[in-house]
Structures are given as C-alpha cells and as structure tokens.
C-alpha cells in the first residue's frame, strides 16, 4: 500500500526566517512532496523563491510557465521554484506551493515539478508551473527554500515535507 508520510514540518515564528530548510532527509521513500504556505516581508507585492539541494544552489535548470492574468511567460531561470506574496500584497494572504521530487534518493539526475500561486486580489500576482532539473546523482538529503531578494519568510509561513513510498 502506498503511503504519504510526514517527514518534518516548519512553522516560521514571530522573528521571521531567512530560509526554510529540511535536513537529514532519510532515503527510505520513493518520492518527496513539499507543501509550502508562505509570505515574505520584502517591500514589494511579490517575492521569488529558489530551491537548493544538499546545501547547493548549483547545477539547477528549469523551464517555467508563468501567468499573471494578462500575460503568459515561459523561459528558463535556474533554481527558480515560484513566487509568494510579499509585504504590499493583500494582508493575511500567503502563497501556496506543491513541489514534487520523484526518485530523490536515486542515482540519476533529479527532476522537480512545482505548482505555485501568489494570487492576492491585486493586479500583480503569479501562477507558476515549473519543470526543474538538478543535474547531480547524489541522493537528496536536504532541501532549502530561499528568497531571491534576501527577504524573510514571515510568521505563520508553514512548510511540510512528505515522503511517498511505493512499497
């Protein structure tokens, strides 16, 4: 029977957090799923996030499909994983992510699928679909989400890392 099991969770406290990181990820699962509800204190409507594996920001590539409601964009931006509302977005509004990482403990390069939304009822918001690749053969033992503009995740941001087993 397949299983969907919580590995670890992070809830950002009142001081905020520069990043959200999961370490010592066991290799006993088949796939990883990371669910994020996040908001940033950047002085803007939106903050953009990148992903690191095993404390490395290198060897990432991706293709993104991004829409604002008026324009559709597609391109490549290494490590980019999606966007969240920031300080000038509608209050109490947090972006949602689902990041799927299949075969994270295998010996091939690691693919990443990410769906995210920073919708906040203002004119500027993004919806992203991202197909990413980490061109490394090492098993993923840590995952870190970082803000691209050195802002902090604000209080009540949460992240849950699940392992999916096919056994």
């Amino acid at each position: 029977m397949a299983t969907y099991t919580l590995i670890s969770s992070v809830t950002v406290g009142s001081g905020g957090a520069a990043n959200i990181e999961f370490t010592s990820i066991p290799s006993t699962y088949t796939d990883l799923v990371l669910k994020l509800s996040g908001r940033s204190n950047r002085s803007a409507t939106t903050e953009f996030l990148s992903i690191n594996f095993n404390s490395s920001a290198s060897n990432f590539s991706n293709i993104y499909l991004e829409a604002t409601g008026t324009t559709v964009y597609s391109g490549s931006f290494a490590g980019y994983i999606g966007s969240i509302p920031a300080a000038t977005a509608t209050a109490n509004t947090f972006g949602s992510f689902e990041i799927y990482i299949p075969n994270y403990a295998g010996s091939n390069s690691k693919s990443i699928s990410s769906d995210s939304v920073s919708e906040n009822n203002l004119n500027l918001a993004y919806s992203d679909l991202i197909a990413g690749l980490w061109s490394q053969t090492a098993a993923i033992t840590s995952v870190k989400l970082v803000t691209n503009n050195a802002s902090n995740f604000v209080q009540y941001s949460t992240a849950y890392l699940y392992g999916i087993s096919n056994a």
Partner: protein
Amino acid sequence: MSVTYDKIQTTTLGSAQASVTFSAISGSYTDLVLISNVDITSAGASINIRFNSDTGNNYSYITIYGNGIAHATNKATNQNKSYIAAYVAPNTSLETVIVTNIQNYSNTTTNKTLISRSNRASASNSPGAEVLSGLWRNTSAITSITLAADSGNIDTGSTFTLYGIKAE
C-alpha cells in the same frame, strides 16, 4: 511518523444536480485535495467553488490555459466565487479530471488559496490543459465546500472525492 492521506468523503451523482457540497469538514488535517471527475448537462461551462457558503465578493483567481498551439491567461478580482475549472465539456463518456489542492485550510490566520489542474478532455470542445489559482479572502477555517456549474447541472456519474493530508 504516520500515514497521512485520508479519504474524507466521496460522492458519485446518481442524478444530475445543481451543486455538490462537502460539509462538516474536520479541521484535523493540514491540506485538502479534491479529485473531481466531471461532466455537465449544459453546452460547456465552468465549475465554480465557494467556501463556507460565502457568496460575498471575496474571491479572485488567475487561469493559464494551453492547447498545444496557443495559450491564454485570465484574471478576475472581487468575485463572488472562484473556480476549479474554467471549462468542462458536456460529455458523459469523456469526463474532465480536476485535481484541486487547498492548503492550510484549517488555520484561522491566513486567507485561503487553491491550485487546480484540469484537462479539457473533449476532442471537439477546445481540448487542452489548464491551471487555475484561486484565493478566498477569509481567514476562517474551511468547513464546507460547494461546487456548481455556472450553467446547467453537474451530470449523473460525476464523482468527487475529498482527501485530507494530516501533518502529525
């Protein structure tokens, strides 16, 4: 660590009806996942969603749609409903599949967002793929979900299953 992906409720329509409601949703999960397999009785319409029976102008959304040739995006603010799919075809033999993630649904701190992926399964009615990102500007815990077609009824045989993902 424990297994955390639980079926909360499933519904298969025995007759066409205007709406489907999941009520008394427990707050004991972290996230909700709704799997819908739908067709409708009208000539093609959107499937809308409301939380906690709220009909105020507290919803907004962005859509992305592509059909292999072209793409499009749309956005609406201050709406009285959001959506899980912008187009569902009237085809009982080729239903539209919709996967909707509603995260942090039970907290009382944040507004609630959803991400919904759907196909447009009909070969004759604008086939393609779509993502719909919605927002409900309300910090209440979600305790009920109501789905309805913008026109016509949800057809016989449509299925809806609500799962809870528990973080414990």
